[in-house]
């Protein structure tokens, strides 16, 4: 019974003598493989060459400083709350007199840790942050030998004053 008019009659014709010799097919196969010898290689030699990332790529985090070099983070904890992987922990501390050049707000993060093995790089911390403090960048998280080394503290996450991390790709209005 024919249900649709799309059915096709499949035939399996007897192979001709030349086809049964297989040699012409093998020769054409060899021609195909030899062509690939001269094709452009798809490989990038990684440590020397890095591939270009899309503007929306979400890699290693950065804790931003403002124009004066003060840390933006005020340890509100919204990033930790929004994190679906529960990768972020922090301890808040009050800014003392004389520390105004270090921290922008009156409260700051004394300890800020992201477990890079837990992190799923969803970017929700970045969306939750009201202070433009945390951003995901196009940098890759390097490999380590132990799990403990993947718990990044402020020493890795906060950008250096003399070595700012460019996040203009993530946020067009952000300058530094």
């Amino acid at each position, binding site marked *: 019974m024919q249900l649709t008019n799309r059915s096709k009659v499949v035939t399996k014709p007897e192979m001709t003598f030349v086809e049964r010799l297989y*040699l012409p097919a093998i020769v054409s*196969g*060899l021609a195909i493989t030899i062509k690939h010898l001269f094709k452009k*290689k798809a490989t990038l030699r990684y440590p020397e060459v890095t591939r270009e990332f899309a503007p929306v790529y979400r890699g290693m985090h950065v804790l931003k400083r403002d124009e004066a070099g003060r840390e933006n983070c005020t340890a509100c904890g919204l990033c930790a709350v929004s994190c679906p992987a529960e990768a972020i922990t922090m301890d808040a501390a009050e800014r003392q007199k004389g520390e105004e050049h270090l921290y922008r707000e009156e409260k700051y993060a004394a300890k800020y840790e992201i477990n890079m093995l837990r992190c799923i790089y969803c970017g929700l911390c970045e969306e939750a942050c009201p202070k433009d403090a945390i951003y995901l960048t196009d940098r890759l998280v390097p490999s380590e030998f132990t799990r403990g080394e993947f718990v990044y503290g402020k020493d890795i996450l906060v950008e250096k004053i003399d070595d700012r991390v460019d996040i203009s790709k993530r946020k067009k209005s952000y300058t530094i």
Partner: protein
Amino acid sequence: MSVVLFKAILIVIIFLISLTVAAYSTYAERKIAAFLQDRIGPDRAGPFGLLQPVADGVKMFLKEEIIPTVSDKLLFIAGPSIFMLTALMTSAVIPWGKPLEIGGKLYALQVADINIGILYVLGVVSLGVYGIMIGGWASNNKYALLGAIRASSQMISYELAMGMSVISILLMTDGSLSLNAIVDSQKGMNWNVFYQPVAFIVFLVCAFAETNRTPFDLPESESELIGGFNTEYSSMKLGLYLFGEYINMFISSAIIACLFFGGYNFPGIDYLGTILPGNIVSIISVGVLFGKIFFFIFFFMWVRWTIPRFRYDQLMRLGWQVLMPIAIINVLVTGAILTFFGN
């Protein structure tokens, strides 16, 4: 220089060249495989990864040596040894180039010009299967045993067709089995491949089967037999098996070049002999032979990434029902033509 000393030096040189070519065949295999798949391949050890064989060798030596407790220890060690020994032995009868002239005496670039040269090669090659069989049996492992059984039946099947295709060559060189005479008879561009294309194809297919290369690598099919006969082997004993395979490939390329592509002969070899000193022509002829050998090693690897592995019944049918009859008919036709039309 005495002939014995010259031969001793020649043996050492051929031994070293075989090992070097085999070592760099592993590198070439990986590099060509990568290039044919649009990759780059090993390029970390040294410039272009040229030190990769050294790194692989060191790795093989440093690996833990495991001999299964249920295995037959003596045979387990004998397997790879025999395989390697037979692989190296075949190089003795290959004429590597025109004779060198040192101190007014001619020295043939061939370890032994025995009058049964090609028979010796076929004999030693068929001994090589004992290395695989003994190794596979001594491992006391079903995959190893299956691989060994496949290897032995495959070798036996393809040796016959191989021998038959060689016979048609022998008919053309007045029945001389000496490889030297066979090479000499193909002077210039008078190569056997133009007279015996069918024998060449049969021999080539059989050479693939004898060296366990794809598409006939059933003894060590990694997807179904976990490596086949060398499943239980580790460290340098595995290294000997892998190495022996590459030496086999090198030697069979040399045999193909000698039997069908004129060996060290190249067009214009006589003309070069009149304008250049004899020794330089000899060295050029060695280079020409190695060029042919390297082309066939490349061809072995090229085919590996083109044709998928045969099924076992297809392998047997090809060997017995296709190659054997073709080889026999080829011998008959060659004989008839030689009888009725002369040379």
